[in-house]
């Protein structure tokens, strides 16, 4: 009888893990809680740093899944991993047996409402990076009353590196996301002034630093080192922000048409449920802790549980897909040994 592997999560990492397993001759089942494959990528318009349309990547992955004959269960949520990866229990109470489990359940977006001082969902023209992607897909960036914004302020690190909301980690990919979106706004509305408030710019990937430089030199986006302390709404529904430019050491106050909060990655809420299974440990940040950060990045302390993608830490799309491949190979090797 052929072996069967359950993949929890049908985002980029999960899809790639399933495809690779099939290539290695192992049956795999993707269990996805939403109604379709793709995870967070479904909500994205274009990808940094190349501005590649998200669909290009998504369609290719979906195609691979379809071609390889992976079984996909959508609108179906895993509630618990049992027997150290030999079984999973679904939300509807039924259970599925498996020879191994690949946890690719991803991350949650930081809920910007928790930083009440920035007024998300209180003031009309405060948005998150996710809202902005939706606007890009739906025909352009507009304020609530349909105007083209004349000034836009981005705020980096909302829900990242912030002790006050229990998010001490760096979410890594938001810096470059902010740069990408600032450029996209400039491409769409060249006359709009874009300000970007940051504490550090972390350009870790290939082409990122180059894009950041382009943003400054070519698109004339103003990067201000300093965080916004509070925001309030003016009578004409614009947003007044208070910040400090820490490079010149002076407080500043400005009114913008739109404030964009660059939200970070929060550990997936389901991680707590996975941690109830023996062999699955969490970091204090609630991200899942792999067996070994150097030599076992996709493995757990349990022989039948493997990890892929942002369930263990914030990663970009390429890294997540590569982890899908790595996890699949580890699973195949483990199953062969048995």
């Amino acid at each position, binding site marked *: 009888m052929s072996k069967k592997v359950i993949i929890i999560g049908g985002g980029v990492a999960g899809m790639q893990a399933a495809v690779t397993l099939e290539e290695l001759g192992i049956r795999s089942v993707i269990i996805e809680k939403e109604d379709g494959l793709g995870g967070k990528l479904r909500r994205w318009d274009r990808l940094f740093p190349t501005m590649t349309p998200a669909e290009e990547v998504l369609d290719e992955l979906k195609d691979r899944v379809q071609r390889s004959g992976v079984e996909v269960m959508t609108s179906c949520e895993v509630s618990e991993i049992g027997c150290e990866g030999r079984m999973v229990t679904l939300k509807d109470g039924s259970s599925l047996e498996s020879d191994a489990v690949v946890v690719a359940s991803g991350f949650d977006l930081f809920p910007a409402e928790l930083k*009440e001082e920035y007024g998300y969902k209180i003031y009309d023209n405060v948005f998150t990076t996710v809202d902005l992607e939706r606007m890009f897909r739906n025909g352009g960036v507009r304020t609530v009353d349909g105007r083209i914004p004349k000034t836009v302020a981005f705020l980096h690190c909302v829900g990242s590196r912030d002790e006050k*909301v229990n998010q001490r980690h760096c979410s890594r990919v938001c810096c470059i996301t902010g740069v990408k979106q600032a450029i996209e706004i400039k491409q769409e509305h060249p006359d709009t002034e874009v300000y970007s408030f940051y504490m550090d710019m972390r350009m870790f990937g290939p082409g990122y630093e180059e894009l950041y430089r382009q943003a400054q030199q070519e698109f004339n986006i103003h990067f201000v080192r300093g965080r916004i302390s509070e*925001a309030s709404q003016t009578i004409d529904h614009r947003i007044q922000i208070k910040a400090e430019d820490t490079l010149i050491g002076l407080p500043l106050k400005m009114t913008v048409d739109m404030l964009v909060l660059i939200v970070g990655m929060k550990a997936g809420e389901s991680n707590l449920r996975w941690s109830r299974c023996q062999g699955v440990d969490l970091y204090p940040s609630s991200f899942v802790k792999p067996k070994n950060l150097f030599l076992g990045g996709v493995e757990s302390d349990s022989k039948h549980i493997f990890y892929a993608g942002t369930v263990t830490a914030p990663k970009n799309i390429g890294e997540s897909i590569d982890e899908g491949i790595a996890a699949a190979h580890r699973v195949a090797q483990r199953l062969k040994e048995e």
Partner: protein
Amino acid sequence: MEHFRLFVLPFWLGAIFLLVTLLYKYISWFIGLAPDERRLFFRSLFSRSVFRSVGEVIRESLFHRKIWRTNKLLGYMHTTFALGWFLLIMVGWIETLVYFKGENVPLYVDIFFSYYVHPIFEHNFNFSLIKDALLLLLLIGVCLALFKRIRSRAMGMKRTTKHTWGDRVALSALWLIFPARLLAESMTSAVIWKFGGVVWALGEEHHLILPGIGCGSFLTNTTGEFLARVLPPDILQAGELPAWWFYSITLCAFFVALPFSRYMHIFTEIPLIFLRNAGLKSGEKVSSYDQFQTHACSRCGICIDPCQLQRDAGIVGVQSVYFLRDRRSGKLTDQVADNCLMCGRCEQACPVGIEQNKLRLNSRRERAVPVGENRYGYINGIDRSEGTGKVGYFAGCMTLLTPKILRAMERIFEASGEQVWWADKEGGVCCGRPLKLSGEIDAARRMMEYNTELFRKHGITVLVTSCPICLRVFREDYALEGIEVLHHSEYIQRLIVSGKLSPRFGGENFAYHDPCELGRGCGIYDAPREVIRSIGVLSEAKENREKALCCGASVANIAINDEGQRRIGERVAEEMVATGASAAVTACPLCKKSIARSNLIPVYDLAEVVANALPD
């Protein structure tokens, strides 16, 4: 000198040393009081407060009523030591008077009475029985004290005080005193039982005691007979005097150690009660009266358990008991003075009623580094207020950082049709309390003067704030005669009662969290509860009102790290969840933020739930 024996010397010297030290301290502290404080005290001597003080001394210094409320066994232990020992001394004194027919004998005869007189219970009023009974009570007290060392939980205390070296000496001496007394009295009774003797000084009457009778009562007579039977006669005779020496030395050790130990509280609580009832209070500046308070701390450690820094954040060695200890010994560090939420839970629990927060504040003031002259120069002439009205609204910095509360207040004012003057919607000057809490009172005063002037300039008659931190400083430190200062909970309650505001009853179950500054700080417990009841069902946390938990975000703690704050806040959120309510409601922007960050339960300010219940 007829009664003098060499062994009374340690006791005698110890007692004189104690008396001189106590008098020196109390007199010098009293002289150090401000003239009007001394006047208050003298005036109180001719008022009813004296009776109140006497009653309180009996209730608290002897019976320790407040400790009984903490735990019965703990209360019993403290009462036996205080009341038991006091009665033992009193009964001994009366007994001496009776036996010596009022003859003037030195004090040590009272103390070592059984050595001089061999009282037997066939004659006279049965003092021996009472004294033996009291001694037994005290011995049980000592056993309980030992038991508390091993299992303090059984006596209602999860944690007990870590003692200093001086405390340990005094403690050991205290615990030895009563077994030593038992041994000495038993030895004397044993000698009489074995060899017979006389009841020594019954005026003219001298009673012979035949061998086989002994002296003392049920306790010392029995132990005496036992010793007489088991010990050889020569050891009995040679051992009696050393036993009395031992008793005398333990007394001496205790008396000498007392002024340098926690037991200073035994005597100091008495002048403290009289001075407090005369109307003395600790204030902004360190004063001589503070000495009475710091020395009245018995280091019982009852303040440790309620402290959330210890209980939830694992921060030890900073609690009130240690703060007072360090301040008393002059070894106070910033770490101890600054690491306190000033939530007031320890003050609430303190059986001596020491003003913990005031003392900590004036210590902080003493240690504060003065700020530069021009630091607050920018506030001159700023007026960003808007609107006009008899009602002024002061949001405070924290409300400006929680705009949902501000939004809700706008709706409430609009719905009730009140004309409002907005003091700081566009930014204003701090109320001054955070600076005050960090000891920078002079800087805080500049903010207070500025704000007072601003309020006066705009002619308001009611000042509403949604921040309890601002509320407290407005009420306690601002001179705002003619302006009524209200917390928004009180103000909203008024609007509802007067019919200006009619929120719908939705029936949602809300758990209410008492903010420290609003509850213990300003005594406002009912107004927010009444408001909640008008819109939904009110659930109470296990520890509420005067005993409510602190959210951990208090601006008073200038030393705690974020992790500590988070853990304290999370604990509060867990308590809110445990009530079974669907959401938590509080009345302070800081509490809201710190309970919300744990993400366990939705948290709203009172104004938000009221605004949500208003008809559109």
